[in-house]
């Protein structure tokens, strides 16, 4: 093969690989886009102010909203974050800093197993742990189920992000006479913070989209509720209930509720971008 033909060959391979990658991207993107289009086109018509301010009305009655379900989702995801984020981040930092021993690999293995467990199983576990002892469904049971879903993935993500921080930064800090714990907290964790915030918001977004674990735990509620010991409505369960019902106006409401859920998750993702933007000029 002379130089010229090998050059042509290289260019052909380069071009065709670029085309293959573009096709793969399109194939992956089309279903995503069609879901988005379907939800927007079927749900947008139902958007109104009363959707956010009213509770569901019985079938056949006009109007009614999903305000209680939206608040319930935010409330339970908030509770779950209070439990799940500190535990997940703490476990991740432990795994990264001290996790080279037997305990560490045990915890890491369990986290991996746990993150592969179907969410409905976690719902059953929360049912056994919280609902049965309490004697009834409750928001706190839902929050526990969501927290259990958040912890393992968040722990592993935090571990990876903390491990990505160059050891040179730890050495630089220690060489300034900064104690070990302060170095971990104010240099290592601070450097990894942008990634950890993103990981937190992604796990929050995932928890907000879970249905199965809430079916056994928080169940549903036709009215506003902020009492952690009472059953609570959530967008996902509301969507499920509306979708499996035989009524057309409930189907329409399911689409609108799905759109609201998509917007909530989208806002969380945008928030993570804004929060983690560097405040420093010239930062790379």
């Amino acid at each position, binding site marked *: 093969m002379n130089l010229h033909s090998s050059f042509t060959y290289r260019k052909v391979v380069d071009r065709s690989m670029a085309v293959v990658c573009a096709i793969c991207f399109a194939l992956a993107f089309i279903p995503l886009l069609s879901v988005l289009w379907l939800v927007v086109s079927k749900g947008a018509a139902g958007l109104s102010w009363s959707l956010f301010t009213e509770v569901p009305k019985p079938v056949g009655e006009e109007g009614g909203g999903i305000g209680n379900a939206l608040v319930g989702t935010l409330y339970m995801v908030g509770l779950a974050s209070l439990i799940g984020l500190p535990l997940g981040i703490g476990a991740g930092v432990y795994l990264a800093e001290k996790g080279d021993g037997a305990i560490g690999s045990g915890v890491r293995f369990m986290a991996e197993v746990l993150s592969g467990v179907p969410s409905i199983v976690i719902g059953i576990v929360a049912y056994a742990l919280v609902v049965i002892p309490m004697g009834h469904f409750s928001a706190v049971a839902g929050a526990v189920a969501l927290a259990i879903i958040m912890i393992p993935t968040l722990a592993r993500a935090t571990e990876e992000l903390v491990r990505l921080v160059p050891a040179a930064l730890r050495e630089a800090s220690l060489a*300034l006479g900064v104690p070990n714990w302060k170095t971990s907290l104010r*240099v290592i964790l601070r450097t990894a913070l942008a990634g950890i915030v993103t990981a937190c918001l992604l796990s929050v977004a995932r928890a907000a989209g879970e249905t199965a674990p809430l079916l056994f735990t928080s169940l549903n509620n036709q009215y506003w509720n902020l009492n952690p010991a009472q059953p609570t409505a959530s967008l996902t369960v509301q969507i499920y209930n509306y979708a499996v019902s035989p009524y057309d106006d409930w189907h329409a409401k399911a689409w609108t509720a799905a759109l609201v859920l998509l917007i909530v998750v989208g806002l969380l993702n945008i928030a993570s971008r804004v929060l983690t933007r560097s405040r420093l000029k010239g930062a790379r």
Partner: protein
Amino acid sequence: MSSAPAIQTMPPDNPLSGALAPQPQLPLAPPGETPFKIDVQDLNVYFRANHAIRHVTLGVKPQTVLAVIGPSGCGKSTFIRALNRMHDLVPGARVEGKVFVDGKDLYARGVDPVLIRRRVGMVFQRPNPFPTMSIYENVAAGLTLNGIGGNHAEIVEHCLRQAALWDEVKDRLRHAGTSLSGGQQQRLCIARALAVEPEVLLMDEPASALDPIATAKIEELIHELKEKYTIVIVTHSMQQAARVSDNTAFFYLGELIEMGPTAQIFTNPRERRTEDYVTGKFG
């Protein structure tokens, strides 16, 4: 360099003078024993079964520069990192022997490595500014991370001037430390090390990642800093050792082969292996 700043004394209101002053409870060696700022006696470092530093004994007088030279893997960095207990972090590392700084043994029982590191500063091979901090915050990091609040503007300016970086960064102190060039970053790291007012400065190949101009600036800086600090510099460049140091120690396979005045090491070494190394027969 446009303006080589003279060494100034620290501003009198430096909060460090009280907070990070040498701790009196460090065990004291019998006074008046050595003229050395750093006195290393029979130092051995092991990484598990690997005996990396073997029976090194040497002394560094105050306000002098000691260059540590030797081929790759001879233990230069391992040696210098033993002088502020950086090996404490390495799993499986073990240090035996004594390292006296001002007559106090760093490895004596009950000595807190954190307090040692405040007196024995270190500059690393690769510039490692904190990426989440601005230039200003990087210099002040040793103060703020150690819980000393308040306005550090004066100290920051003073240290940046000492590190010959002030004129280049004074208009962008709020920019990211990582936005600087490699050579500027290294001088930033030197300024950061100076801000905690160490007495000893350890430099582990501080110019190995830099271009010749930045290297010249760092070397000029070492000359200036020598008036105030005791400096140990590891270098793989024999020219650099010859330019910046008063004394030179040649390490080979973890042993100190020879130490003496720099001029003598390079012109008239006692040991055959030293001569072979400095004349480029191996390395």
